[in-house]
Each structure stands twice: as structure tokens, then as C-alpha cells.
């Protein structure tokens, strides 16, 4: 495994050598950085986002009124339609935007919410005519619209709880395919369970919504929920899993659980959207929640940018008004003094063309990671900045106080794994004492990374176990991380789209729940010690190679671990940088009071940093001892150092 991954990380670094631990030497000037030392309270981004997106919704609604006032009567329904689409799209954003999983199934949830609410609310007299054989005694009850809608949402929740268990276990394409299957199953049932749904045709007599106030209120509630979720711990963990699922799990994030919560929440909102849709139309039918409409809803989200609520709102507006305009144009009107020819399919053409153009040129959507809340925050900050401009931040690395060491040793006992017939790691026993810095060294292919993967639950061991003192460490990456063993990756795995501060904060979230018995670590101090203060608000992927390495170590340290497992922290670095890394790792380890198992193939680096060294070759321990002992061991010299000496 080592040779190819080693190469991969080497090529990752490309022509961007690390900046060697210099603090704030990057091209980040300007007042933005100063503000990081005087940020508003933790709830500020949420309030800003809700405020900003309310404003955005209002502007777009008013714009819609202006547009509708110059058009024909067909435009009257347009604003209601758009607001309902906002509910659906923002609801979808809660799941897709935060988890990064493409879902085709959400209109299935909308359909369930809509049918439940509609079937309950249709007047009893009409039901006897429309659905004479209705099951569950539905034919004899009539529920007020409001209660019916609430029940509709509740039923959607229940279905989502079941579906969520399946979807959340998977990720990526597999999850997408399950959601697609869900859509077709719901559609199939709606079309064929004629006794309950009236079949493929439309079912009328649904009490209609009067006015737009209710829809506007629902849209506002939806926006608030979506914004709240985005800044909630679970929402942020979902975003970490979206950026890099494996790294998120290795930081103690239970990514299945966060996906599950996101799915259920978003399904409930979309269920509400579905109910509103049939209430505004006064009819319900399977064709209202078809695959075609699914594509439209997804297009709305993707065109605007699915990462933020603002993206969802803007995309909804663009597609709604754009489609309406091209429908108008396709009807062959007289407009601007020209007789337009009658063309069918223009709205679809517009939809596909916009979606394709955005995907090919701006895959993150028109707004990308921008949220209206950012604008609000910026305005507020600029105001504050005037009064606090004289405050200078402490840009110098802070010597943080030493944290006390943990009590237990990390013991890998007889740990090994076999791939096919190949013994990658063969019954390795290593003990790392609290606070000890232990080196694990060996030539390429010795099984070093596999060993780390075994300890951290990424690879299931064929035999052996890992303990912290007497406790067995869990067998999944999430449990291992929560248990106190944090790791870094040989091929960098930062949460690229999240800010540097957020990368560390994610680990802090997990630590606050699962590592309470360890002393808290101040994120600002950790940033400062890593020389990352100046980049705190930059997306992690914008960092250079060396800084990304230090960020990964800082992120692992923020977990308040008992042990840090560092997989080739100096891979791809120059000698000077490696030397700087030595003192950096020592400093961080002292700061959190953790023992360290550091893996490398660079003997010079290992001998300067470690108290003890274990030499691994072909999956077995070749030698163990102080750096000096190991260096003179004949077996080591023959197997490993021979080529170097």
C-alpha cells in the first residue's frame, strides 16, 4: 500500500512546498483577519443567516409581484408556486447541501405528505363519491386543513425514519440509487392503490389555501430551520462528512447518524411542501410528484448553489421565473413588437440549458458557498471594526499550558491482517506509554499505514486487539476517535471546503461530547501554535501543503486525544521543514497531553523526535529500542538501513 499512496501524496503536493511554519507570511492582508480575534458570539452567524435570507426572500417575492403585475393572469399563481418551491428546495437543501448526497427521492416524501394531508382534509361528502372504498376508515373522517397538514408531516417523518435507516448506512452513488428507488416505489403505489389514492388521475375537492400569507410563513419557517440546522453541531458534522466522509469518521463523527438526522428533518420539510402544493392546486395526483418535477427541484437547488440556503432561494427564483418567461415566449405572443413563433418545449429547454451551463462552468452553483448571512455579518463587522481598529491580534504563537497526561497506555496486541493470501501485518504488539513519543519505521510496504488503519478501525483486523489500558478500543473509526485515539492521514484529508477554524471546531464538537474528562483545548491557541491564525477564516483547501499538514495535526489534537497517530507527517517535506515539524509535534503533544505514535520512513526525522522506535519490515517487528540501539541492530541494518547507509 505504501508505495502508491506515498506517490499520491507526493503528487498532491505538486509545486506547492510548505511554507515552513512561518506565521502569517501568506498574502493575507486586510482587516478580515483582525476581526477573528473579536468575533461576534456563536449565535451571530445563525441570526445573520436567518435575517439575510428573510431579506432575500422578501426581495425576490416583491420582484415576483412586479413581474406578475405586467403579465397575464397566468402569472397570478406564480408567486405562490415559487414560495412553495422555496419550501421544497430549501427542504431538499437540508439534506443534499449538508451531506452532499444527491437525492432523487425527496418528492416521494413530498408525495406522502401531500396525500396524507389531502386525503384527511377532503370533505366527507366528497370522499364518499371520490373514494367509496377508502381503507383505514379514511372515508368517514374529515380533518381541518391545519391539523391534516401536521399529520401529513408526521406521517412523512415516520416513513423517513424507516427509509433513513437504509439510506444513511450508504453514501454517494449507492444512497442516490436507493432514493431513486424510493421515488418510483411511492409513485407506483400512488398510481395503483386506487382505493386509497384515486389512481393515476387527479383527485379534486381539496380545501384550497386562501391567500399567500400561509405559504410565506411556511417558507420563512423552512428557511429558519434550514439555517439553524446548518449551524447546529449535527449540521456541521454533516458538512464535514460531505467534505471527506472518511476523515469525518476518523474525527469521531458518526456520519451515518448525521446523514440520518439530515434526511429525516429534510423529509419532514419536503412533506410540508408537498401538502402545500396540493392545497394550492386544489387537486392531487401522482404526476405532481413525478421524476420530471424531481429534476426541476434538483435543478433549482444546484443552479443556485446547494451549500447555502441563499443558493436554494436564488436558484428557485431563477428557474421559476425563467421557466414562466419561456412558457410565455413559447406560446407565440406579440411581445416587443415582434410576433414570436409558437414553440413547444421551450421551458424544458431553458431548464436543461441553465442546469448544464452551471454544472459545466460553476459546479458549486451560482452562489457557491455564499450565504446572505455572510453579507449581513460583513456589514455588522465593518461597523464594529471602526471602534476596535486599534486592537491588534496576538499573531505570535502562544505557549499553551501543558495538559496532564492520560492514565492508560495504548496497546496493540498481536494485531494483524491478511489480504487474500498476503500477510500485510503479522501479529504486531506495540505499547505506547502515556506521553511517550514512539516511532514506527520501516521501508515502503512494511505495513506501517496498514497498522495505523488497523488500530483506528479502518481495516478490520484478522486477529489481535487494541486496548487503552484495560479498555478495548472500538472497532469503527468513529469509536476509536471518541475513545481517545486520533489520527492524521498520509495523503492529506482536510475538510477542504470548510474554513480552517471550522476544521478544528468539528473535532472540538466531538471532544465536547465524548472527551469531557480531558482538559478543554482552546481553538485559538491551537491555531496560533500551528501558525494558522492568519488563515483561520480561509477554506482549508486554499492552504499550502505544509499548512494543511499542520492543520490535520491541529484537528486531531482538538479531539483531546490520549494518543495521536501521525501517518508520515513529513512526507513530501524538505529537511528544514521536517526539522520544524519535530518541535511542532512535540509542542502539540505536550499541549494536549497525548502520547504520539509517529510513522515515517525518514530515519533522521524519527531519531530526532522519538524516545523509542519500532522497526517494521514485511509486516513483522524487526527491532525495538532507543534510536541508538535500533540504528546498530544488525537485522535492521541489513533489511532497511543497508540501502541508506
Amino acid at each position, binding site marked *: 500500500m505504501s508505495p502508491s499512496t506515498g506517490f499520491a501524496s507526493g503528487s498532491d503536493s505538486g509545486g506547492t512546498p510548505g511554507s515552513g511554519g512561518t506565521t502569517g507570511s501568506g498574502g493575507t492582508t486586510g482587516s478580515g483577519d483582525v476581526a477573528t480575534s473579536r468575533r461576534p458570539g456563536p449565535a451571530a452567524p445563525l441570526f445573520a443567516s436567518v435575517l439575510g435570507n428573510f431579506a432575500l426572500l422578501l426581495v425576490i417575492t416583491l420582484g415576483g409581484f412586479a413581474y406578475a403585475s405586467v403579465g397575464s393572469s397566468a402569472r397570478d399563481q406564480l408567486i405562490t408556486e415559487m414560495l412553495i418551491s422555496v419550501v421544497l428546495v430549501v427542504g431538499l437543501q437540508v439534506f443534499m447541501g449538508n451531506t452532499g448526497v*444527491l437525492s432523487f427521492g425527496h418528492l416521494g416524501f413530498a408525495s406522502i405528505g401531500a396525500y396524507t394531508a389531502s386525503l384527511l382534509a377532503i370533505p366527507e361528502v366528497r370522499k364518499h363519491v371520490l373514494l367509496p372504498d377508502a381503507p383505514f376508515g379514511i372515508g368517514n373522517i374529515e380533518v381541518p386543513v391545519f391539523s391534516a397538514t401536521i399529520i401529513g408531516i408526521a406521517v412523512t417523518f415516520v416513513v423517513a425514519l424507516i427509509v433513513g435507516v437504509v439510506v444513511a448506512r450508504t453514501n*454517494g452513488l449507492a444512497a442516490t440509487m436507493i432514493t431513486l428507488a424510493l421515488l418510483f416505489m411511492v409513485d407506483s403505489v400512488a*398510481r395503483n392503490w386506487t382505493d386509497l389514492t384515486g389512481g393515476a388521475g387527479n383527485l379534486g375537492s381539496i380545501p384550497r389555501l386562501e391567500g399567500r400569507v400561509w405559504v410565506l410563513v411556511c417558507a420563512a419557517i423552512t428557511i429558519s430551520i434550514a439555517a439553524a440546522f446548518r449551524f447546529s453541531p449535527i449540521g456541521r458534522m454533516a458538512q464535514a462528512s460531505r467534505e471527506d466522509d472518511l476523515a469525518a469518521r476518523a474525527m469521531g463523527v458518526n456520519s451515518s447518524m448525521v446523514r440520518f438526522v439530515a434526511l429525516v428533518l429534510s423529509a419532514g420539510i419536503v412533506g410540508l411542501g408537498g401538502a402545500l402544493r396540493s392545497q394550492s392546486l386544489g387537486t392531487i395526483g401522482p404526476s405532481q410528484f413525478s421524476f420530471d418535477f424531481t429534476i426541476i427541484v434538483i435543478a433549482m437547488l444546484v443552479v443556485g448553489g446547494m451549500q447555502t440556503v441563499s443558493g436554494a432561494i436564488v436558484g428557485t427564483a431563477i428557474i421559476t421565473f425563467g421557466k414562466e418567461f419561456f412558457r410565455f415566449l413559447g406560446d407565440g405572443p406579440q411581445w416587443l413588437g415582434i410576433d414570436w413563433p409558437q414553440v413547444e418545449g421551450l421551458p424544458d*429547454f431553458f431548464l*436543461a440549458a441553465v442546469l*448544464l451551463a452551471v*454544472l*459545466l462552468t460553476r459546479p458549486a452553483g451560482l452562489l457557491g458557498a455564499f450565504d446572505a448571512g455572510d453579507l449581513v455579518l460583513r456589514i455588522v463587522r465593518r461597523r464594529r471594526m471602526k471602534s476596535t481598529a486599534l486592537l491588534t491580534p496576538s499573531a505570535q504563537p502562544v505557549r499553551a499550558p501543558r495538559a496532564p497526561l492520560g492514565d492508560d497506555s495504548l496497546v496493540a496486541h498481536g494485531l494483524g491482517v491478511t489480504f487474500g493470501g498476503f500477510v500485510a501485518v503479522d501479529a504486531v504488539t506495540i505499547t505506547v506509554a502515556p506521553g511517550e513519543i514512539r516511532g514506527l519505521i520501516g521501508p515502503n510496504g512494511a505495513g506501517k*499505514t496498514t497498522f495505523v488503519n488497523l488500530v483506528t478501525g479502518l481495516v478490520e483486523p484478522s486477529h489481535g486487539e487494541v486496548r487503552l489500558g484495560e479498555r478495548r478500543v472500538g472497532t469503527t473509526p468513529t469509536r476509536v476517535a471518541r475513545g481517545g485515539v486520533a489520527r492524521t492521514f498520509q495523503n492529506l484529508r482536510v475538510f477542504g471546503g470548510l474554513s480552517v477554524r471550522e476544521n478544528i471546531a468539528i473535532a472540538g464538537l466531538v471532544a465536547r461530547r465524548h472527551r469531557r474528562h480531558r482538559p478543554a483545548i482552546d481553538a485559538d491557541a491551537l491555531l496560533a501554535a500551528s501558525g494558522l491564525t492568519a488563515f483561520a477564516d480561509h477554506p482549508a483547501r486554499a492552504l499550502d501543503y505544509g499548512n494543511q499538514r499542520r492543520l490535520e495535526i491541529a484537528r486531531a489534537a482538538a479531539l483531546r486525544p490520549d494518543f495521536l497517530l501521525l501517518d508520515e507527517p513529513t512526507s513530501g517535506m524538505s529537511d528544514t521543514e521536517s526539522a520544524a515539524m519535530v518541535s511542532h509535534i512535540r509542542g502539540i503533544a505536550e499541549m494536549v497531553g497525548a502520547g504520539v505514535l509517529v510513522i515515517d520512513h525518514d530515519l533522521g526525522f524519527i531519531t530526532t523526535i522519538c524516545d523509542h522506535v519500532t522497526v517494521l519490515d514485511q509486516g513483522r517487528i524487526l527491532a525495538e529500542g532507543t534510536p541508538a540501539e535500533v540504528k546498530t541492530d544488525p537485522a535492521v541494518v541489513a533489511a532497511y538501513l543497508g540501502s541508506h547507509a
Partner: protein
Amino acid sequence: MTEILQNLADGLGAGSTYALFAVGVSLIFGVMHLVNFAHGELLTLGAYLAYWMLLREFGWWVVVPAVIGAAVLGSMSIEFVAFRRIRGANPFTLLLTSFALEVLSHAVWKVFVSSKRKPFATPEWAFESFAIGSVRFEWWNIVAFGVAVLSFAVTAFVLRRTMFGLAVRAAAEDFDAARLMGVKANRVISGAFAFAGLLAGIASSLILMRKGGAEPRMGADPLLKAVIAAVIGGLGSLPGAVAGGLALGVTEVFVRDLLPEDLGGLTDGLVFAVIALLFIVRPQGLFNVETAERV
């Protein structure tokens, strides 16, 4: 027993066309991790070409090569115009782009031709049948199956015995390593699209001889079936795609046969339920390609 044999015989033709599309989907997934939902639009392209040519009294023996040629060119141009620009993007973007292309294709036919079905004459033999014992065989099913088997034999030969096949298999295994070994990315991806187009063209010709009409959205359904077939067989696995396609075609006939008359519409829903069940049992197993991620 007769009934089982009869269902098998009836499902063979549809299953073969699913398999032909599915192999293309799987092949493209192998080289660029894209589930290409635009692949089915090659059928629509072929259908309108066939309509145009048959209207001008060309025989099917000219139409078939033209349809196949159009599918190859169409597949290659889709890659050249759209997917080449976003190669290496995440599967999410790739998948959605192919969807956008599908919707665009639907719209283009609607805008420039019509949303109404354009009928054309099918060859006479496509609906004729013969009996062995008490089992009726439709000629179309037999021909479709035969052509598919032949196509798969050629595919297997190309992939196993030619430089192009070696390059495709290497790229599917590890694209970066393959490039380091001198495999040209453009050529192998373009070639995979061309080959997938060829198989799609063959499948289209078979479907058109039976369908006898062109509609803007006719490509969506066969493609969905093909994707399901490829997923069942494990994306990236060509024998899996063949097995998945045939299994799906036959299963559909069986389900339709088992369901009472008035629930016939549930066929698709049931098929999807089976697939969802598959994922519940083996969530990772069906997507081996993804779990092979390196750390």
C-alpha cells in the same frame, strides 16, 4: 413448467437490449466513474434518424448501420462536448450533468421536431413467432438475444485481446497508474464512449424494429432499466451488467405474469423494491469500486 419457459422466452429480447445498454453504462462508469443517464438518448437519436430515413424509403439494411453509426458519433460527441470539461469532478456533478444532457435532449426534440410520436413501419418478422412444443418463440426475442450474445463475444474479445481493451481495463482499475504506464486518457475515454455507443446503437436498432416510432422521451425508460441492470451486476463489471440486464428483463415478465391484471402497473415499483432490498442486504457490495478508496 411451460409457463416458466414461456416467460423466459418472452423476457429474453428486452433483457438483451437492457444488457447491451447496461454494458455501455458499466464501461463508461469504469473509466470515469460516471453513471451516464444521457446514454439512453442515443436511442432517441437513432429513432429520429430511422424515422427520417424510412420516410425516404430507405431499407432497414441501410437504416441499421446508420443508427449504429449515429450512436457511436453521438456518444463520442457527448463526451467531447460535456464530460471532457468536468472529468475528475465528483460523481455528483458528473451524474447531474448527464441528467441535464438527458433533459436537454428531450427538450431539443420537442422544440425542433414535435412532442408527438412520429411513427414508422417495422419489419414484418419482428412480430412473427413460431412454436416448439407448447412454447411460443417470437422471432424478435430470438434475434435480439442472438445479436446480443454475438456483441458480447466481440466485446469480450476486444477487452481481453486488444491494446484498447487492455488500456480500458487498466484505466478502470487505476486511472492514474494507467496514465503513468502510457495510457492516453483522452483516447481511452473517448474509445470507451465510442464502444458504449456501438452497443447502444445495436440495442437501439433492435428496439426500433419493434417500437416503430420516435418520441422525445423514449430513451429514458430503457436507460433507467440499463442503469438498474448495471447496478445489480455491480457498476464497472461487464459480465455483471450482462447478467443484470437479462435478469431484469426476465424478472419483469415474471412479475407481470404473477401480479393480478389490475395491478400490472406495480411492476416497476416491485422491481425497485427488490433493488432497494438488495442495497439493504449489501450496501457496499454493489459498489465495490467506491469502497476501494485508498487511505
